[in-house]
């Protein structure tokens, strides 16, 4: 597995041709506009380009708009033949219905706990390991890194059966730690932080601190972490969104009595709630938190993905 994927999988699509001239901007999380002007093409967009892009944006945005329309109508409105295309007055009523029927309130809280813990834990573990891989010399470094990168492409979904047997053995089925602990494993995160720190952290800085007699732990907290912060932020954002949206494993490990948002949505779509507008209200509530994050930090997320983020 490792051998065939490794060359193609180098997830740094930012600089496949010449990484020396276009480093993935380690210090700033967003895409440098200056760099974009020098490398790549700088043609001006014509009206046709604008038109196509606007259609693409509408295509992206329409389902969100439709969710709001459907969530604020009644089921009867949705079954009319020229369908309603504008929002209606029932939003609050549908929110109340879905909070009662699918316990979305508890689901939101659980998702916040789960995604928050996963984000903090992942960023910490990955920064620690990424720093060791980037700047420390030790036995077995190559092999350990190869194992980490080699499994990056294998979907964790393929390990769910033993994982389920494991948490059943531990008595964790339907408990949040069953989702949190496996969620902390991010080979991608380790690789991401390693790449980031290799670029952003000068060796001389560590050497200087070492000469001054600082311990490795001290070096980590007072030198590595401050420099790694922008990378940690991007990793945190991507991790939070992935954790919030994770579907397969929470559906397997949790039930509707202790749901995350995605588990609650699966239950809503499972056919026992027939009111479409209530289902859409639940969908809207479950999506709002990530949309909020995206609205505030969209640019950073765009930058993080363009630096070579991988799905999941």
């Amino acid at each position, binding site marked *: 597995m490792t051998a065939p994927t490794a*060359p193609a999988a180098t997830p740094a699509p930012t600089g496949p041709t010449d990484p020396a001239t276009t480093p993935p901007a380690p210090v700033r999380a967003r895409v440098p506009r200056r760099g974009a002007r020098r490398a790549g093409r700088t043609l001006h967009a014509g009206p046709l380009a604008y038109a196509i892009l606007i259609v693409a944006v509408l295509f992206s945005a329409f389902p969100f708009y439709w969710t709001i329309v459907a969530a604020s109508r009644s089921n009867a409105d949705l079954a009319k033949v020229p369908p309603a295309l504008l929002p209606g007055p029932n939003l609050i009523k549908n929110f109340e219905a879905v909070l009662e029927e699918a316990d979305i309130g508890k689901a939101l809280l659980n998702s916040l706990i789960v995604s928050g813990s996963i984000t903090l834990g992942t960023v910490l573990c990955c920064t620690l390991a990424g720093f060791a891989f980037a700047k420390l010399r030790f036995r077995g470094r190559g092999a350990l890194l190869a194992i980490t990168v080699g499994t990056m492409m294998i979907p964790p*979904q393929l390990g*769910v059966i033993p994982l389920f047997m494991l948490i059943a053995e531990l008595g964790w089925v339907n408990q949040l730690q069953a989702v949190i602990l496996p969620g902390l494993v991010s080979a991608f995160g380790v690789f991401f932080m390693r790449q980031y720190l290799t670029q952003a952290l000068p060796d001389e800085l560590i050497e200087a601190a070492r000469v001054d007699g600082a311990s490795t732990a001290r070096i980590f907290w007072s030198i590595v972490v401050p420099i790694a912060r922008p990378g940690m932020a991007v990793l945190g954002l991507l991790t939070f969104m992935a954790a919030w949206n994770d579907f397969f494993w929470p559906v397997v490990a949790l039930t509707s009595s202790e749901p995350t948002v995605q588990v609650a949505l699966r239950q809503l779509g499972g056919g026992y709630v027939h009111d479409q507008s209530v289902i859409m209200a639940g969908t809207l509530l479950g999506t709002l938190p990530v949309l909020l994050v995206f609205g505030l930090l969209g640019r950073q997320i765009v930058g993080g993905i*363009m630096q070579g983020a991988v799905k999941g």
Partner: protein
Amino acid sequence: MTLTASESPAPPRPVPPPARRGSARRAWQTFSPYAYLAPFFTLFAAFGLFPLIYTAFVSLYRVELQTPGEMEWRGLGNYTALFGDEYFWTSLRNTFTIGVLSTVPQLVMALGLAHLLNYRMRGRTFLRTAVLLPYATSVAAATLVFAQLFGRDFGLVNYALGLVGIDPVDWQNGTVASQIAVSTVVIWRWTGYNALIYLAGMQSIPHELYEAAAMDGASRWRQFFHVTLPGLRPTIVFTVIVSTIGATQLFGEPLLLEGSISGGISHQYQTLGLYMYEQGWGFFHLGRAAAIAWVMLLLIVVIVGANALIARRRSRKEAGR
């Protein structure tokens, strides 16, 4: 697991550095890298590596969901049962067709979109963010909305088709129609993401190449095909691999189109991922489900290997020219 265990011997807890200089200090210097790796690798071994490897082992046993601690040796029985089940072949075929239906348009559209986003224009940050918006939604939310839009009787899609004189389509029960519906969700969620990946690749193509091509009188189209596409090849290979892996394990979209774990009345859009879930958590056969997981893993290895091989051969051919 044994590998990591032997490679990283239980590291000493990160105690405060000893006051004495000399050997204790040096020992700390030697072992501290392992202390940094310990949190990640402990979790990785327990919840990442072990389940993946142990899946192969479980697939040789009879294990039932109600009694996951009891394992009864079956040899290759799970696999023969699998290959004798017509729904396995249906879901394999569906995974393939939905994979093609979702991946090909997605990547082609992403490429075009990236090309446009690479123009200098007003509001480019806004456009990039807007195109990525679907990426922020979950599979579950996106699928529930699209299931509504694709409703047979009152769905907006059929209404719009009716406006241009096309008869209502049964997006749930038609084989091709339902697979298109599932693929649409995938395309919607991932096109913008892939466009940004391509855009990043395009921006790293040296500007001089375009200048040289323009000086040779190459049109915009020729520049796209002879400068942009070759420059993007590593990125394209990467996205093809990632999307194919995603398509192989498709699960949420077919599950929530109607909320049925069998992927429609006649399994018309059941994927391997869904089939695995049905066997494991619908019929309680964890051993059988593990065999399916292992088949999926092999499938991914073969596809990724083939991709890498083709990519390598093509670049070698080009180098030889």
